[in-house]
């Protein structure tokens, strides 16, 4: 059984179409990265999956309809949304007591272990913590829940690079201990590159790219050529071309590595490179995309 299965998922806010017929299938144990520019429909898709918003079309999460069976679903699904905010009056110790008291899959010792790596005091209120500390606290609470499906919508917003790395390391370690299904959206694509098993690009309410990371790595190659080799390289039909420091960088799909190696320097492109090629240079919103 697939964990998430959507067919023809649509959602409109007035005349604005947020989701324009999405087909989606996430199998158990996958780590899917959902990448898209601002306003592409990522959060709407995740809200539909979480039963927070109504939709047209077919959607099943862990075999349930999230809109009508939300209460049962939430025992197995956990999420951090970029707009979910911890209440300012809540103390750290109260937050732990609360989640421990309401969530049957919460492991207090794990949450404490996460927090022990931070400088967060048990007696502090959320309003006394820095933005990064609040995110750390939220992550500590959610990561200590043994959910079957974990949805992370911009989980590391406002965190410095050290903590982001630490977070994804612990996410991976955790995943190897007990596999579960994870869906991540983030603008910091380079952070999740090594974490994902699957990748999707969403643009204007549609899935425009869908690939496993294995296919991604074997399919796409990036070639850096000097002007002299450019015509020969172009003859191999690159999907995208850009200029950096007088050299041309061309992105190829399904072209054997040997063919390219003769023309110049070949490397595996980053997610951000392919994203730009698929969605276009002017899509914008891909903050921190590595060049």
């Amino acid at each position, binding site marked *: 059984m697939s964990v998430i299965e959507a067919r023809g998922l649509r959602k409109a806010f007035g005349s604005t179409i947020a989701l324009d017929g999405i087909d989606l299938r996430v199998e158990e144990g996958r780590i899917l990265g959902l990448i898209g520019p601002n306003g592409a429909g990522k959060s709407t898709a995740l809200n539909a999956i979480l039963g927070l918003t109504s939709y047209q079309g077919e959607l099943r999460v862990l075999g349930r309809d999230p809109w009508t069976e939300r209460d049962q679903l939430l025992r197995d699904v956990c999420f951090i949304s970029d707009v979910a905010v911890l209440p300012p009056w809540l103390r750290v110790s*109260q937050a732990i007591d*609360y989640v421990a008291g309401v969530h049957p899959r919460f492991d207090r010792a794990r949450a404490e272990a996460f927090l022990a790596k931070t400088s967060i005091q048990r007696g502090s209120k959320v309003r006394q913590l820095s933005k990064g500390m609040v995110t750390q606290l939220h992550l500590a609470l959610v990561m200590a829940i043994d959910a079957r499906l974990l949805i992370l919508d911009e989980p590391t917003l406002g965190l410095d690079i050290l903590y982001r790395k630490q977070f994804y390391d612990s996410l991976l370690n955790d995943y190897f201990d007990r596999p579960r299904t994870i869906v991540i959206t983030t603008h910091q694509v380079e952070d999740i590159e090594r974490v994902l098993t699957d990748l999707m690009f969403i643009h204007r309410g549609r899935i425009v790219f869908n690939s496993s990371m294995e296919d991604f790595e074997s399919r796409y190659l990036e070639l850096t050529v000097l002007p002299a080799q450019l015509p020969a390289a172009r003859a191999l039909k690159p999907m995208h071309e850009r200029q950096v420091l007088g050299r041309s960088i061309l992105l190829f799909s399904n072209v054997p590595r040997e063919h390219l190696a003769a023309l110049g320097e070949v490397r595996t492109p980053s997610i951000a490179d392919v994203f730009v090629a698929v969605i276009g240079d002017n899509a914008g919103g891909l903050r921190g995309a590595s060049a």
Partner: protein
Amino acid sequence: MSSQPNVIQNLQSQEASPATLSVTHPYCLSVQRELWEYRSIYLAPLAIAGVVLLGFLFYLFRLPHTMRELAFLDPASQRHALAQPFDFAAGAIMAAAFLVSIFYSVDALYGERRDRSILFWKSMPVSDLTTVLAKITIPLVVVPLFAFIITAVTQIIMLLLSSIVLLASGLSVATLWSQLALFQVMFMLLYHLVTAHMLWYAPFYAWLLLVSAWARRAPFLWGVLPPLAIGLFESLAFHSSHFFALLDDRYSIGSDSGASMMGDFPFHPGMRLDPVGFLVAPGLWIGLLFAVIFLAAAVRLRRYREPI
């Protein structure tokens, strides 16, 4: 020696194993959460009790003098004079509790949307029904209960202080204790809190919770203005005031049968209570029906509306 730490480790790892589902109490934790957030639920009546006790200390200076003068009066006048500060304490704490309940109900479902924490709460396996029930529990049960306990403790402290002062000035405490009949009056207070504050006022609080779940801003105005507008419209259009009369009846619990249905304040020991009359009053059940309708609407709003 060496095996012991291993055993402990095994126990710990067993506890942490993913298969174990811990027992949860979503409703209790949801009520607890309200007490964490709205500390005025107990701090406000406590503060009022503190002020009353402070004022009472000054009253105590005059008490021996008052007692000597009262000796010449009839029992009813004695009772009236002696009970005054005690009634004042009960009245002030109840008024504080009533205000706390109103302000709490207006904010309860609005505050979590205003500070945008609603998505955090909704990420936990606590149903909207549980959340709304926990929230209505505060004005219906928790606040009256705190009000009762705080009033009872305050009045007992007042009685003990009075007794000490009287004994120290060589006077008898018999008149004071018999006229106050403190425990009888406390029972009436409890009866009044259950009948009036909990059951009779339930539709008020439920209405405010509904407005609190619905209003995008200024929930207090939305709670107050529509009823006011309906009443004004009625008096302008039809020269009648049935709607205002209805609200007034609802607030100021009338008692005309001689026996009190909800224990009229200030309480006096001879008051006849009429619980049967209270339970058969159609107003009680109509009010409770409205309360249930308002709460159901609040649950639906929290459940199905776009979160933010």
